[in-house]
């Protein structure tokens, strides 16, 4: 099964969509877990429990899941190389989806013994995905900027898997390690490293493609990547203030270069998805500013939790949902067959509009709830987030249902 090299760069629809579908489902679960554990969120000291489960349902279940699906389909297009094995791409999902579920379930139930097999499945899936990604990047012929980001993200993925396994071993076997240092490294490698660098790299061709604009210059893309890598290394070396400053510079280069590119777009209407993308950039900058304030001792109370909120549901989730609502109907229209429906005709707009409002309300409520230590506000925010996730799921189901109708042959 694994030897079946994809002949074309266009994968069967079931491959990316199984990842997107799982990400949509985990998105609902993540907010539901946060709602259930809302009372613990603001003063969460770390460790297992519902906030931990919600965080990992979001990072692994939504962000990594969707990133794997998106890169499996989009990277072969950028690198001009077909995927090494469609069977392996499917196997990654079969390992990863149950792995995340078991891991997060174990964390929610304070059951480290249940978390370990989940973590093992997830790490096996990520290792197989890393092999697929590495093979594709190794033979890449196009878009060197995206390829460079891919290699950097792959290195971060290896680091986050190692630190993640070490943290699980600490919970399960009492492995002696510098817990705050490992936890910090794991956070940096996961959020700014693997997910962040993939987001930076894919943005270089995906956002200009969606906006019909020329991509930023390679010089600005490499400058942002180099500075971001420097920032990550500084953070791993515990030079947090310098890391946050370098991260701010990298983010500024990235955002300014993409805004320049978007300003010169050929299609005036950007669409509401870009509201999410732009908000995500603001949240990225805010996360780095808060990290700097923390390093300088100027941080408000509960800054650690605020940082995670700005980073995960803030920057990364907002960015992902903005991009996902454009590429899901785009890819669906690609697979619609000879009747070629328009992507806009496949996209139900009402659930997306509801999702946008609810997502922004959830973020604002979550930040305010944590800042003010008001668990009722966190609870209300998580409820809004859950309603938003259900609206996004309705959008996804709507795309699939419209695609199914479009594929039915017209009566003769």
């Amino acid at each position, binding site marked *: 099964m694994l030897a079946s090299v994809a*002949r*074309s*760069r*266009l994968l069967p629809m079931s491959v990316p969509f199984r990842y997107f579908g799982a990400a949509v489902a985990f998105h609902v679960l993540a907010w539901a877990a946060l709602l259930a554990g809302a009372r613990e969120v603001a003063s969460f000291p770390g460790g297992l429990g519902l906030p931990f489960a919600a965080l990992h349902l979001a990072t692994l279940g939504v962000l990594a899941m969707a990133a794997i699906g998106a890169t499996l389909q989009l990277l072969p*297009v950028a690198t*001009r190389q*077909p995927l090494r094995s469609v069977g392996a791409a499917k196997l990654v999902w079969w390992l990863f989806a149950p792995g995340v579920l078991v891991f997060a379930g174990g964390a929610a139930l304070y059951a480290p013994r249940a978390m370990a097999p989940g973590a093992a499945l997830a790490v096996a899936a990520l290792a197989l995905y890393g092999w697929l990604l590495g093979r594709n990047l190794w033979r890449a*012929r*196009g*878009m060197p900027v995206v390829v460079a980001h891919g290699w950097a993200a792959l290195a971060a993925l290896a680091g986050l898997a190692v630190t993640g396994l070490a943290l699980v071993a600490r919970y399960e076997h009492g492995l002696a390690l510098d817990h705050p240092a490992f936890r910090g490294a794991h956070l940096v490698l996961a959020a700014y490293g693997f997910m962040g660098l993939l987001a930076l790299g894919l943005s270089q*061709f995906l956002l200009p*493609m*969606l906006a*019909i604009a020329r*991509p930023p210059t390679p010089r600005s893309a490499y400058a942002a990547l180099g500075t971001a890598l420097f920032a990550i290394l500084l953070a791993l070396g515990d030079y947090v203030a310098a890391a946050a400053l370098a991260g701010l510079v990298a983010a500024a280069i990235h955002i300014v270069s993409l805004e320049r590119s978007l300003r010169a777009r*050929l*299609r*005036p*209407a950007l669409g509401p998805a870009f509201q999410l993308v732009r908000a995500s950039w603001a949240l990225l900058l805010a996360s780095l500013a808060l990290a700097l304030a923390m390093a300088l001792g100027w941080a408000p109370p509960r800054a650690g939790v605020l940082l995670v909120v700005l980073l995960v549901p803030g920057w990364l989730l907002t960015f992902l949902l903005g991009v996902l609502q454009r590429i899901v109907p*785009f890819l669906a*229209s*690609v697979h619609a*067959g*000879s*009747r*070629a429906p*328009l*992507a*806009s005709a496949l996209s139900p707009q009402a659930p997306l509009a509801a999702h946008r409002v609810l997502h922004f309300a959830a973020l604002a409520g979550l930040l305010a709830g944590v800042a003010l230590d008001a668990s009722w506000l966190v609870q209300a925010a998580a409820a809004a987030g859950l309603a938003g996730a259900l609206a996004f799921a309705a959008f996804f189901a709507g795309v699939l249902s419209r695609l199914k109708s479009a594929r039915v042959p017209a009566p003769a």
Partner: protein
Amino acid sequence: MDFNRHISRRLHEEHEATLALWGRLEQTLALRGAKPPTEEDLRLVRDCAAQIADEVTRHFAFEEQDLFPLLAASGEGDIAELLAEEHAAIRAAARRFGELARPAADAQAGWPELRALALELAERLVSHVQKEEMSLLPSLEDLLDEETDQALAGSYA
């Protein structure tokens, strides 16, 4: 993306010109809303009709006859098939759009259909160009040698 082959560059320039023109029309129609068109709007519609007529005869035909077979032979037959299906959908919409936009036609009376078709064509063209820029043109960079590139560029001139 920067292209090294003459034919890729040529097609890319035509894509940019198409998108610029249809982007202008899309924006004009969005601003106009349900109001009846002005003479200026109708001029822009007719420019787009002329452009799309040229596009579907010359640009599409060249791709279908000379480039899609190359793509199919390199193992990307499904992408070539997808692009050809989109050509068929664009051709059908462009034909009706051309009829309604003819100077002799009563464009004011047929405006609701003309407007809807214009928006549909704008979206179809954007989506089609996105796919060609992501798949066809980068593939040509790999598939064509200098000699074939020159020959194709010559035949398309």
